[in-house]
């Protein structure tokens, strides 16, 4: 069998969280402000979604040492998060394929 198993993921499903995961999956690490700009959301909204993903252990967050100003926050997807995203995308593809059966 090839490819990830299609599994719908409740945590990843929310549009912003799906986009966050997709962005993080494409990069090793991304800075908080970059995510905010890409998603065009406020700090608080982004923080809220990152918190949900972090609680699900789908991502890790790290801050620069305190003596550096301004302190930047870097976000990375965990292996678990990547697996959840892959499964969710596979499920979306499976569903999308139902609308467009192979010619």
């Amino acid at each position, binding site marked *: 069998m090839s490819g990830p198993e299609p599994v719908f993921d409740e945590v990843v499903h929310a549009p912003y969280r799906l986009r966050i995961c997709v962005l993080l999956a494409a990069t090793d690490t991304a800075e908080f402000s970059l995510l905010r700009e890409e998603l065009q959301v406020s700090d608080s909204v982004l923080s809220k979604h990152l918190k949900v993903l972090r609680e699900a252990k789908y991502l890790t967050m790290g801050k620069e040492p305190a003596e550096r100003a301004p302190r930047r926050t870097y976000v990375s997807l965990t292996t678990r998060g990547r697996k959840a995203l892959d499964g969710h995308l596979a499920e979306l593809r499976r*569903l999308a394929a139902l609308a467009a059966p192979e010619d």
Partner: protein
Amino acid sequence: MESNSSPHGGPGSGPGAGHDPENGPENGPGYASGGDTGHGPGPGQAPGPAPAPGHDPAAARAALDAASETRASLADRVDTPWWYHAGLALGTALGFASLDFDYGLSTYGIITGWILIPMLLGLFAARATGLGPSIASLSKRPKMFGGLLLAFIGGVVAAALFKYFLPDLRGVLTGWGVLLGVWAAVVSHRCDDILRRELRSRL
């Protein structure tokens, strides 16, 4: 709209937007069904909750399109600074040069060139661009990367042999290091191109 009959819905997935306990505008543009692109609400249009794709292929397609668009927009940001590539070349060459001209400092040269410099470059590049180095982000390494790795390991083995059999021969390892350094810079630069292409591909 969706129903509660989604096979994916566990005990916590109720009807409506039950897939997400935090529905509201902050949850982002909902997945559209039908003709909407799902990329966001129009002006004055309140973004709705995120219905589970459930059995709705159109909603799933819209979600995939939105994700693809997000990836594509990131592609424009993938531009590792020139000094990252140059520094990588310098670090590689420095490590080999320190093996070549061993004045009791080769350990420091190796640690600096092969560990400290790449690590610091990665940190500074992430600070400058907001992204990690593209070489770490690729799903597949470029073919040149495997060759570079082999050449690097070969160089280290050669260094040990030179030290043993030809201890007076100087310059060869430094030359090899410079060559590998340039190679590393090219591979690193190429990783940007590959990552950009990956990001622009549809999900």
